[in-house]
């Protein structure tokens, strides 16, 4: 018998009441139950950053975060960024700077960048590199991603 637990999740401002298996990660629930497939599964061990979502505003690897931990938390995924069909500034900057190739790592990096922008803090170039170091991109070589993040932070 697998143990189930009732949890409340607020994903992109919408509340979901769910019964989840205690063995499930937040990533499993977001993708397989709620179909937020913009959350990507890469390494499954918290190293690649593809599954990054914001939990109460904090970038978190949803693959190593249990669904039951998320009870009562506000989750934001890439799907929640556009408003009325218009992309967020961060999303637009990634397009404008050509920071996307295959796109697999993009949702995670966009979420981390969104948190950096919303923190209101200033970051040096070295600090930007440190703050996005938890995301692997196997296409771009990072310069364009760095440019998009920097532009987003300058934009505010």
């Amino acid at each position: 018998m697998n143990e189930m637990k009732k949890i409340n999740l607020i994903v992109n401002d919408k509340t979901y009441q769910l019964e989840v298996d205690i063995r499930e990660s937040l990533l499993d629930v977001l993708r397989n139950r709620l179909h937020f497939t913009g959350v990507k599964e890469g390494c499954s061990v918290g190293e690649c950053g593809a599954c990054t979502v914001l939990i109460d505003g904090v970038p978190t690897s949803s693959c190593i975060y249990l669904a039951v931990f998320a009870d009562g938390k506000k989750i934001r995924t890439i799907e929640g960024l556009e408003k009325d069909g218009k992309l967020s500034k961060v999303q637009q900057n990634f397009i404008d700077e050509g920071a996307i190739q295959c796109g697999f790592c993009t949702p995670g990096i966009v979420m981390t960048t969104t948190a950096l922008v919303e923190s209101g803090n200033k970051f040096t170039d070295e600090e930007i590199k440190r703050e996005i170091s938890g995301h692997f991109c196997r296409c771009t070589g990072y310069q364009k991603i760095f440019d998009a993040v920097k532009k987003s932070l300058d934009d505010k």
Partner: protein
Amino acid sequence: MFSIKKIYQPITLAEALEIYTSNPQLKIIAGGTDVLISLHHGKLDDVELLSIKNLTELTGINYLTDGTIEIGTMTTFTEIFRNEIINKYIPILAEASVSMGGPQIRNNATIGGNICNGAVSADSAPTLFVLNADLRIVNNEGVRIVPITEFYAGPGKVKLQSGEILTHIIIKKADYKGMYGKYIKFSNRKAMDIAMLSVATLGKVKNNKFTDLRIALGVSAPTPIRCTKAESFAFNKTIKEELIKQISEKTLLNANPRHSWRGSKVYREHLIQVLTERALKEIITMSGGKWHE
């Protein structure tokens, strides 16, 4: 899915201790960044977890009236790295905290988990060793205080009994006042990597002599260690390039690094000396001393 049989999620420490005492088989999960990965890799199986994630009383950093700094074990590395008290009084711990994992890991991984996990590469360990940190451990019957230098039992093993929870890390004023520290982590990648070797130094310099010097190493023995022989050798000797070399060589008297795919024994011994030298020069400069004529 993770092989989890049961999970308890208490919201108070009292409740957690109660549950733990009557279920000694439980495995504690803090930030989860190690436990869930062990489950993913099948190193843990069919486990019953006691989550202490909701124990808000174990989160945060306090500066007490006598200058003692208390860090709740559930404080994350991001919180430590950004904390004003830490940056003002023990910047070396901020430096160690930001070297750990990557941002998303630091946002969830806790300093208590880092210690209790017993990893020889734990980024917080060498720094807490040089700070002579004390650990407050509680169970249903009471409290005990253990110096961190006596807490490690071997690779992945710490002296924590079933029913016990590490609640706070305590750093006394005498252990940071007037001291300058430097942590150097050496790893293959700059981010998201485990230390191949790590060195923490903390010292006080007066009239260009070490009146206090502490050196701790990670990944240099079956547990993090203090280099007591090098430390006592350095005491009250006039600082010169030659002395720094001698101190760095003497760190090997306490170290016993192993050969692994991450780095050979010989390479690690070399790193221990070179990194100790670098770290010593940094703290000498910070404390206004000089090693060149």
